[in-house]
């Protein structure tokens, strides 16, 4: 089996992985990035709205206000030390991107353009803030290409179209790299590294209706679970309120930031009832639930009453063309309406995973061990949507995901450099280092009685039905029973075509294994959390329960074990933001 050795290894070529890789590549260390698609086709490219930082270019602003909004937006489940770190570092992270050449939109005075986004306030819950820095409606694209170019400049080694299979760890728990397979040739590869970072993105394709690209299949999450490590807060999935009805493609919150608003079948601006102050710019979970209620109570639009409408035409054709050009084209192509003349049909769509691989501020993966609940796994890091640091708590604010990527990507890169300094020599690989990864590949060499595509479709239906915007114990329990049956089918599944070269069916089978692991983690965690908080809405436990659930869940695959650990309410330098009712 071919083996390659680097100082540091990044799994995932999106914004988080590329930012961490850049930090390492600027040093004298060798760094490799493994990506299952060409890196600039990563899902970061889809972030339309922007990156939030209290630059105060448009209006008064302070990072403390950003921190307050993020804590409140996350319904007090976010760790306040991590949130303070992110909000304090935000301005320098954005200016750093600007200096790398990211083409931000500009104000008339030449400063970086900022727009208002949902959940943002001035003065700790006061008037709407204007805090999200934007490169038109293509901020993610601009960020991804800027970071990729910087990595090329600094000679990062890319393994494009390689699929990571499993972590390689030794008996003492050190992560020593990964096994992977070339999608083009089917050949396995062992990549050895003293430090490995997972930046594999989200897993939104586990739901039937999702804004996520097809590549978002939770590959890093599956690797971590198979290594016996926990996932944190997996019950928290953000349903973006405005996906194009029936398609899932996202209409950015920026459309409402620019003055768009939602209407039900009676032409009523219903958000005035649910969030009298923030209205259409309330937190995403609040707006998504409001839309779900409008639809459930018969006030949905269209023949099926299965969506509401996003009205933009009052902004005028020129403003839409200038500020929201991508949205206009998307709507014309996929909804068949020009928002300059008619409202866009929208409905909630699975968008973002707040939970993930538990990490500390340095991006080190942490897990309960002998010396405490958050002991770092040596040599293993995680950043971005696959990680849970946790800054988004129970609900992420728009504009904070790109910020998470660059702030914690940089922090992880810095810490990995320290780790490499303190661990200058490779540790010996165990004799069976590649065994688990090779077994994963070999398992799909056989033909079977069940088809991968059918199981994938059923999994997505299951999750949409049993773990959507509203949940109950009974519905979740039924979902787990159906998942048991589906996993039994997966054990009988095989491939008709077992060829090696560009066998996309094999990759989809490997992805399905990861999605099933994510689904189980989500259902078990959602059933355990007997409260409603942020994006997790339990009809049978409609209230937030701070007495019992100001805690993170930790799911471990073996025996579906579920543990908890307390939320860190103490920030680094400022006063704690005490839990209170979350109203907008």
């Amino acid at each position: 089996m071919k083996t390659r050795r680097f100082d540091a290894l990044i799994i995932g070529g999106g914004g988080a992985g590329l930012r961490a890789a850049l930090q390492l590549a600027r040093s004298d260390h060798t760094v490799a990035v493994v990506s299952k698609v060409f890196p600039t086709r990563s899902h970061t490219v889809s972030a339309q709205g922007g990156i939030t930082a209290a630059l105060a270019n448009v209006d008064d602003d302070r990072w403390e206000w950003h921190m307050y909004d993020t804590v409140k937006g996350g319904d007090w489940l976010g760790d306040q030390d991590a949130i303070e770190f992110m909000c304090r570092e935000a301005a320098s992270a954005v200016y750093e991107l600007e200096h790398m050449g990211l083409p931000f939109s500009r104000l008339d005075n030449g400063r970086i353009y900022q727009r208002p986004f949902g959940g943002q306030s001035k003065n700790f819950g006061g008037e709407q803030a204007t805090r999200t820095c934007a490169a038109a409606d293509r901020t993610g694209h601009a960020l991804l290409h800027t970071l990729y170019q910087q990595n090329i400049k600094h000679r990062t080694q890319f393994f494009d179209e390689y699929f990571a299979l499993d972590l390689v760890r030794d008996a003492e728990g050190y992560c020593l790299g990964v096994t992977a397979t070339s999608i083009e040739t089917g050949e396995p590869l062992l990549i050895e590294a003293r430090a490995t970072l997972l930046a594999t993105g989200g897993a939104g394709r586990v739901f039937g209706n999702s804004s996520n690209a097809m590549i978002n299949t939770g590959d890093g999450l599956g690797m971590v679970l198979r290594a016996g490590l926990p996932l944190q807060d997996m019950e928290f999935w953000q349903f973006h309120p405005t996906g194009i009805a029936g398609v899932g493609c996202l209409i950015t919150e920026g459309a409402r930031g620019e003055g768009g608003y939602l209407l039900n079948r009676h032409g009523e601006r219903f958000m005035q009832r649910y969030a009298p102050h923030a209205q259409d710019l309330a937190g995403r979970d609040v707006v998504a639930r409001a839309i779900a209620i409008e639809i459930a109570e018969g006030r949905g639009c269209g023949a099926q009453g299965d969506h509401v409408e996003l009205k933009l035409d009052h902004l005028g054709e020129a403003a839409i063309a200038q500020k929201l050009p991508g949205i206009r084209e998307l709507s014309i192509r996929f909804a068949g309406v020009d928002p300059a003349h008619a409202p866009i049909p929208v409905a909630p769509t699975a968008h973002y995973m707040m939970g993930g691989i538990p990490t500390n501020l340095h991006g080190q993966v942490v897990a309960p061990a002998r010396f405490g609940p958050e002991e770092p796994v040596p040599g293993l890091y995680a950043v971005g949507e696959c990680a849970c640091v946790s800054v988004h708590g129970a609900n992420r604010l728009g504009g904070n995901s790109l910020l998470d990527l660059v702030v914690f990507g940089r922090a992880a890169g810095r810490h990995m450099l320290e780790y490499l300094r303190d661990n200058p020599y490779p540790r010996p690989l165990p004799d069976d280092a590649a065994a688990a990864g090779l077994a994963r590949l070999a398992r799909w060499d056989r033909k079977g009685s069940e088809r991968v595509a059918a199981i994938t479709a059923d999994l997505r239906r299951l999750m949409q039905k049993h773990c959507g915007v509203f949940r109950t114990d009974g519905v979740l329990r039924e979902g787990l029973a159906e998942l048991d049956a589906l996993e039994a089918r997966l054990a009988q599944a095989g491939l008709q075509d077992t060829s090696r070269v560009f066998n996309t069916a094999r990759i989809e089978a490997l992805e399905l294994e990861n999605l099933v692991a994510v689904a189980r983690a989500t259902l078990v965690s959602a059933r355990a959390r007997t409260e409603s908080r942020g994006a997790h809405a339990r009809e049978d436990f409609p209230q937030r329960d701070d007495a019992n659930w100001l805690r993170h869940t930790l799911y471990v695959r073996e025996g579906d074990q579920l543990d908890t650990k307390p939320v860190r309410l103490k920030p680094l330098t400022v006063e704690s933001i005490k839990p209170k009712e979350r109203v907008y």
Partner: protein
Amino acid sequence: MFDPVAAGPMRERFDGISWRCRRGLLELDLLLGGFWAAHRATLRPEATAAFERLLALPDMAIVDMLHGHLPAGDAELARLIEGLQHFRDVK
């Protein structure tokens, strides 16, 4: 009729094109993946080559071509873009 399902390098090339329809944007996944699945057996070789050239571009360049904001560059690619626009329109 051109038979892309025949074993060998052509099939491998076509399967590679299928994988490269995986993009960062869901809308391109749906459009490019759907178009290729529907037309891979019937596209002329020149059109297939144009499709490969298109897939090598960044997502937003493809979006801009589809929206008419970026010229296709050559006649074959322009024909392909027109076909994609039509495919998307009927989706």
